[in-house]
């Protein structure tokens, strides 16, 4: 059944009836949809350790012995605090940098896989703007966070966004693949997000009117067992708002924990990276297993995203077409 709300579309499927506790992925159950580097030249090499091979980047070591439980007990500062330092209440604190910001800027954004990541300019229902990130999974399909397409908060911004402009491979003011604006029925989500506001279903899609993804290529995606995920390195590239406008940044770390519908990690992120792929490298191929949605919060000193479960995987396959 298709429901039209404010000109956009929410798709109901069997997963809509599923409660969060019912979406556990059975051990060993795995399925993948393949990636494509696209026809254009330029494909980055990959490192053997499950991270991208980027000049000047050697990966961030996981804190020794750090588990989610230990981190919860440590009161770890969030990424912004680590960058700016702890400000006095209400006072800007701009000069101190505590800790190491080892995110690395990607300048070869016209090379696969970097060109599959897109900067998103989102016009909200009230006409104001926000920025996020998305990634191609097919010729016409860009995946992002549900809150980048449907705002849950009350007030004039609640509901479907007016439009999303997709800028793959953006590098500052340079748009190597131009831009495409999506609105109306090209904007998709699932009722688990639009009607229930359940963070396990905070996923959205943009169906482009052109096959721009055939030029950029796309990431594969899959759902995996807990054990497979916990042995994986989470790679994440996106467009953080604390860096120069429209620049792509990459970071990686081992996954910290998984639950039925969420994944938790200490990969550094910042506002603007909602909708980024959280992906693993398998034999040099890249498979998204999550979608970044949230930064750290009090009591939860890790970043997190939606886990691609079988129902979400099936929905993504349907969106891919």
């Amino acid at each position: 059944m298709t429901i039209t709300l404010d000109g956009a579309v929410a798709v109901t499927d069997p997963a809509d009836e599923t409660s969060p506790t019912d979406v556990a992925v059975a051990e060993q159950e795995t399925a993948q949809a393949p990636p494509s580097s696209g026809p254009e030249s330029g494909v980055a090499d990959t490192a053997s350790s499950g991270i991208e091979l980027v000049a000047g980047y050697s990966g961030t070591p996981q804190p020794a012995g750090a588990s989610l439980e230990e981190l919860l007990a440590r009161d770890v500062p969030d990424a912004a605090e680590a960058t700016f330092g702890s400000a006095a209440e209400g006072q800007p604190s701009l000069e101190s940098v505590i800790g190491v910001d080892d995110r690395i800027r990607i300048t070869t954004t016209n090379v696969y896989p970097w060109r599959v990541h897109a900067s998103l300019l989102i016009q909200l229902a009230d006409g104001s703007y926000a920025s996020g990130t998305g990634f191609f999974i097919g010729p016409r399909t860009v995946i992002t966070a549900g809150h980048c397409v449907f705002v849950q908060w009350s007030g004039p911004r609640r509901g479907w966004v007016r439009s999303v402009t997709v800028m793959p491979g953006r590098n500052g003011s340079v748009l190597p693949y131009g831009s495409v604006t999506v609105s109306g029925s090209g904007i998709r989500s699932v009722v688990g997000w639009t009607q229930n506001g359940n963070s396990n279903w905070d996923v959205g899609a943009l169906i482009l009117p052109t096959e721009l993804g055939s030029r950029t290529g796309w990431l594969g995606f899959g759902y995996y067992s807990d054990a497979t995920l916990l042995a994986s390195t989470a790679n994440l590239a996106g467009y953080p708002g604390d860096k120069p406008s429209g620049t792509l940044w990459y970071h990686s770390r081992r996954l910290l924990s998984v639950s039925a519908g969420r994944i938790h990690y200490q990969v550094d992120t910042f506002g603007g990276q909602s909708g980024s792929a959280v992906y693993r490298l398998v034999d040099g191929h890249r498979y998204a297993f999550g979608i970044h949605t949230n930064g750290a919060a009090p009591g939860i000193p890790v970043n997190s995203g939606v886990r691609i479960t079988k129902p979400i995987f099936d929905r993504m396959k349907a969106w891919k077409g």
Partner: protein
Amino acid sequence: MEGVIVGTVRSGEVPVAFARVMVESAPGPMPDIALLSGPDGRFAVDTPYRGRYVLVVHADEHRPARIGVDVPDPGRSTETVVELPP
């Protein structure tokens, strides 16, 4: 009932458009999205929780700013101004 932090980003007396306004910390989970100020420098951050919000604001050709805003009642609007050093 959710409220909102309504503010203006400015540098001196000049409003700063397309500044990226982000929630660094909040009393509960917040989406990792960047809100953009309008041509008049105005922005609005929804506040679903009671408590302290720390906003970080970046704009090209400006140094960033960081400001804390207390939201005693999440159902109301709270006004603030973010001054960006040049």
